């Protein structure tokens, strides 16, 4: 079962400490100082490793906040059931 709190905690690990402390569900990824291509790749790998959901960079660019990413994941997991 996917929970918002576990998702957010594990998402924060993908960021450097200066940014991970600031992140809430509504934070815009682009507003974070250390958000760049390597962070995107790390989040994509984390989504694959933890939820077995494949994402590519172009899909990810539309998922602009943790909440939107979480909702996308829920949808994907539901459709995979």
């Amino acid at each position, binding site marked *: 079962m996917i929970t918002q709190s576990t998702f957010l905690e594990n998402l924060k690990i993908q960021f*450097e400490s200066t940014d991970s402390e600031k992140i809430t569900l509504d934070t815009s990824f682009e507003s974070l100082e250390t958000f760049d291509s*390597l962070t995107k*790749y790390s989040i*994509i790998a984390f989504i*694959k490793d933890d939820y077995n959901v494949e994402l*590519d960079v172009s899909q990810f660019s539309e998922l602009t906040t943790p909440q939107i990413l979480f909702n996308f994941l829920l949808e994907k997991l539901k459709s995979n059931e």
Partner: protein
Amino acid sequence: MNSIIKAISFALPSKKLTNEELNLEFPEWSAEKISSKTGIFERSICSNDEFASDLAIRAANKLFEENNLDKNQIDFLLYCTQSPDYFLPTTSCIIQNKLGLRTNCGAFDFNLGCSGFVYGLSIAKGLIVSKSAKNVLLITAETYSKFLNKFDKSNRSIFGDGAAATLISNSSDLNLGIGDFIFGTDGSGANNLIVKNGAGRFPQKQGVDLFEGAEFIRNDDNLFMNGQEIFKYTTSSIPDLVSECLSVNECNIDEINLFVFHQANKFMLDYIRRKLKIDDSKFYINIENTGNTVSSTIPIAIAELIKQNKIKKGMKILLAGFGVGYSSAATIVKF
């Protein structure tokens, strides 16, 4: 008969490229951002008239001098590079002559990138165990800077030039030495890290710089790396490579004293470390002043560990190399 790593020395070009210099060329690319992501503060870059074999010879001569070694004892030279002097002859013949190694010494080049050092250890071990050689000189040398496009800020931030020379010798102590190997090959990823033009299939160098907006994308005359695909390959396949390496060596992960992986960039290494649940203190990262020197990152890291007196007798170190190909290899060395 067993094989041991007896000594390692390395050589870097004297010219440095710092993050501050990169920032002057790419103002949106702050020096702090480069170092916090990649773990790299500066990398060494060859001058126009300095080549991989020059670095290789410097590293080997340092190895002989620093360890008071008699070069006449070398009976095999293995040279790992993707930056050969010529299509032919094999560069190891040129190196043999310039180093003044015996003429009844075996020598050949092999073309591998980031997995090259671990592959080289396996070849050296095979030569020693089969009694074809007693002292193998393994040299890894690379000058990727010569493949990089001047507009390619990502790869220019990551790669540095360098060479390492490692002496692998026979030993009757079966409790020490180079363990068993695991290899990985997946050529379906060949196009994700490639210099396309200039060799047999596309001999003409006629690539053009491609941009998306202001962002440089690729030029087929230069090195192209699909960052996302390389990240995906590495983070998905290397944990399995490590598990298989532990299994083939009948070793538990807790028995490993140090993990020395190919030093690609700090961010990706951190991801793999977390995925494998390896403690920070056992995971060596040495990339600050060299950058990613391709096949030389692992021997340079081991040389630094030896210099810092961090390798004690009896320690088990797991080595894993991975990258261009895709190609990977891992082993456990007991010092």
